[in-house]
């Protein structure tokens, strides 16, 4: 909407001092550029870490992980199954040594909806098993229905996946993978909140710069 405004002001104001739309336009282009640069940076960073071996893609079986309030069931069609036994089931893994984690893939289906699905992480070995609300990400869903958690390349020491918050949910796990592949497009996929800020902040910055310039001119004139 601010772009709309800008066009109008640009069309009407016949440049008393300078073109009124120039600065905001620059601000928007710069902001968009910075945003894309940031996306590219994280893509390049992840790719280079994959090649240098800092990021290791690895699938896990339930046996490899510590389970709490979870009962493993017999496999079905070669897929592992488990049922949550109370409303706070946890799948834990805490022998990471500051490993980079980008995305945790949880390709699983449940027999019924189970409430919130969250991944907690710790970022120092001293933290031990102290998971906090400040270090958690919510599950997101691919089009095919499988889940993933985006950590954005953090050095992680422990992970805790809470698959549901109701209990009595039967899960069929196709795959649980650390550093699951992140498609190229995902680095650039727009999310609503950054977009909202991208729409407003450059305008705000332009207003600030213009105001600052006026102050500067006044100060110079005073001298």
């Amino acid at each position, binding site marked *: *909407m*601010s772009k*709309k*405004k*800008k066009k*109008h*002001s640009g069309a*009407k*104001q016949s440049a008393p001092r300078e073109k009124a739309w120039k600065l*905001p336009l620059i601000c928007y282009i710069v902001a968009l550029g910075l945003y894309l640069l940031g996306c590219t940076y994280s893509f390049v960073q992840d790719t280079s870490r994959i090649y240098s071996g800092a990021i290791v893609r690895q699938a896990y079986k339930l046996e490899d992980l510590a389970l709490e309030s979870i009962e493993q069931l017999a496999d079905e069609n070669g897929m592992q199954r488990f049922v949550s036994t109370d409303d706070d089931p946890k799948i834990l893994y805490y022998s990471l040594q500051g490993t980079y984690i980008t995305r945790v893939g949880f390709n699983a289906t449940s027999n*019924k*909806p*189970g*409430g*919130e*699905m969250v991944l907690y992480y710790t970022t120092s070995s001293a933290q031990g098993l102290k998971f906090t*609300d*400040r270090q*958690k*990400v*919510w*599950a*997101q*869903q691919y089009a095919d229905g499988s889940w993933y958690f985006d950590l954005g390349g953090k050095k992680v020491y422990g992970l805790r996946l809470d698959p549901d*918050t*109701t209990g*009595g949910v039967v899960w069929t796990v196709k795959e649980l993978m650390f550093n699951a592949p992140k498609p190229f497009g995902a680095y650039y996929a727009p*999310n*609503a*909140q*950054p977009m*909202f*800020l991208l729409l*407003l*902040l450059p*305008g*705000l910055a*332009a*207003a*600030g710069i*213009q*105001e600052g310039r*006026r*102050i500067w001119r*006044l*100060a110079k*004139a*005073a001298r």
Partner: protein
Amino acid sequence: MNTAIALLAWLALCVFLQGSAKVKASLTPLLALCITMLYFSLAGVLQVLWPAGLLFYLLAFGLCGFTLVKQGVKTLHNMLTPGFLVFAVGCVLLLAHFAIKTPMFSEWDEFSTWGTAAKLLKLNNSLYTTAEMGWVWTTTQSPALPLLAYFAQFFGSGFAAWKVYWAYDALTLAVCAALLAPYTLKDWKKALPVGLLALLTPYFFSVFYRQVHLNKAYLTAYADIASGLLLGGALVLYYTLARQGQPKVARLWQAALPLAALALVKENFYPVVLVAMALLVLDAVLFAKPKGKALLKKAGIAAAAVAAALLPYIMWQAHAGWANRQNAVTGGQQTSMDALTAALTALRQLLGMQPQSQRFSEVLQLMGPTFVNKRVSMVGGGLATCLFIAALFACAFALQQNKTLRLRIALAFGVLAAGFVAYQFVLLASYSFIFSTSLETGLFEYDRYVSGYYTALFLLGVFFLAQAARQKQPEAEKAAPKHRWAVPCLAIAAGLLVCYHAVFTGKINLEAASPKWTLLYWAGWLALAVLPVALALLAKGRARLAAQSGVLAVGIAVALLFVTLVPPGLSALDYSTRAYHQQQMLEQNAQAAAEYLQPGERIFFVCQNGTGLQWFQYSYYFLPYILDYSITGGVSILPPGTPGANPEKAKTLEGLQQYLQQNNCTTIFVVALDDVFIETYGALFTDGLQSFTGQPVLYLGNGQGAYAPVQ
């Protein structure tokens, strides 16, 4: 689809108001929404909701057509203002966003009052006060907001919670538009920070720490945020109607409309409406241009307009009283003191004319510390927030060069500050004599009750400061420019940044903070308090620029706070669909069970060891089927003689059978069981409750007093 038609009707009404009633384009959305609320309240009380609604839609489009034919396309061109565009574009974007995400209700009061009231309205096409329901106290509910939601899904048959949210957010956008009323598209630079501030205000007064769960601003059916915004909107609208700083009495009806609507939005905000009305009359009488006889006439008009704004409230009280009496016949009861008695009792006890009751003295002791320490906004507790808002007003006062406007700002602040004290007294009376919640964990939801008043004060403060930033550039500014005034402006930013950092790092828990941080925290606020004085001394001749920088600084600070405290994915913009899974599951359970129900059937509800929340939730999801109050409303049903059993509510097996028969409960919905229930009442069920394995089960009566499970 029906929501898109509702939006079009609002836009059409806006065009009419601008073209034919000569209202400023950016003020039209707020007026259109207030007219909707008032019109539908009247129609609801007269019990002609559906035909009157149809007429409203016809009128809106008809009047818009009339205006366009008479005045031509020029009207549409006049509509192109930042405020109106924010409203129109914002509504369209939100509509698309919510239609995809379909958020649902999730809070207690949304099920017990606000959301259920809206659903009852939609399903019955009549006011919820007269609707049949498993419980009786919905009559105390103010009607304006649920009716706004009703308007947003007037056509069609289904009910969707997200349309309720959309309607309330449209109100937020309308208030934002009103705040942007003085700007044209050319002034976008000045309008932008103000618009940003208005859009983030719901977050500013509902986020206190870094969020760890989905923040419900823009996703709430509670009236608290809406009432605060509407009060702010009404005041801003009034102060926008001015010529050369003086109020336009003839246009006072425009400001009276939102106040009239506000009286129907939230019951305990009514005293605040009276304060606002007093302010309007005082301001109009003191500062209107004509003197002598003409002044008397204008004062008369002002008083009449304001008094007329009270009529809808009186009408609603009469209706609620009538509905209450109807309900009393069928077993409803008065549960607490009425507001006036409570206020008088509180006043007597406060002045020592009557010995203080224990609860009153406890509440009185809690009020002070709660005001100081309890977080009510992103910047901290009540005292800090008050200082912050006072600083806004003081800056506006110091930087405003127009003497009349200066006095008006001072008057507004004085009256509203007195009103704030009065509102604290209302809260004192409410907590002492009306609410029955425990005081052990402090005053229950205090932040929610006061947030509305802070919101309104904040919006008005921002408006006044922005007004100072719009004044004509005084000659002095060119003649003797000095850059010293930049120092206090930096101080405002620095003060805010200190607070921001302290909030961010979570170090301003005042009870247990290290001395260093406490010192820094108060230094930040001191900077804000000293600032207006410094500004007044230094900013001679550069007031406009200083004010504009102030608006920008506040805008950037609030945006920074928002970005820091609300992580992406926990706001209305970007939340995970997983956040509403619990609700989706409850809805699915209710829908699956409803397949087996015949129209008009009543459901008995069993949820042993429940809190009552599930009963409210299923009451809402099962509508139009009625969930019976079920003896306890979703708390354990116990046989007589069990420890903890309420003697009036305890039932033997025969007693329960009798209850089911008397209340015509043909089905039983079992959500949670315990051994006592299975032992005592198991005989009622053909399977001895064996079918229940944790998932809700519906039992259908066989007509002979036994109930069989549905497979």
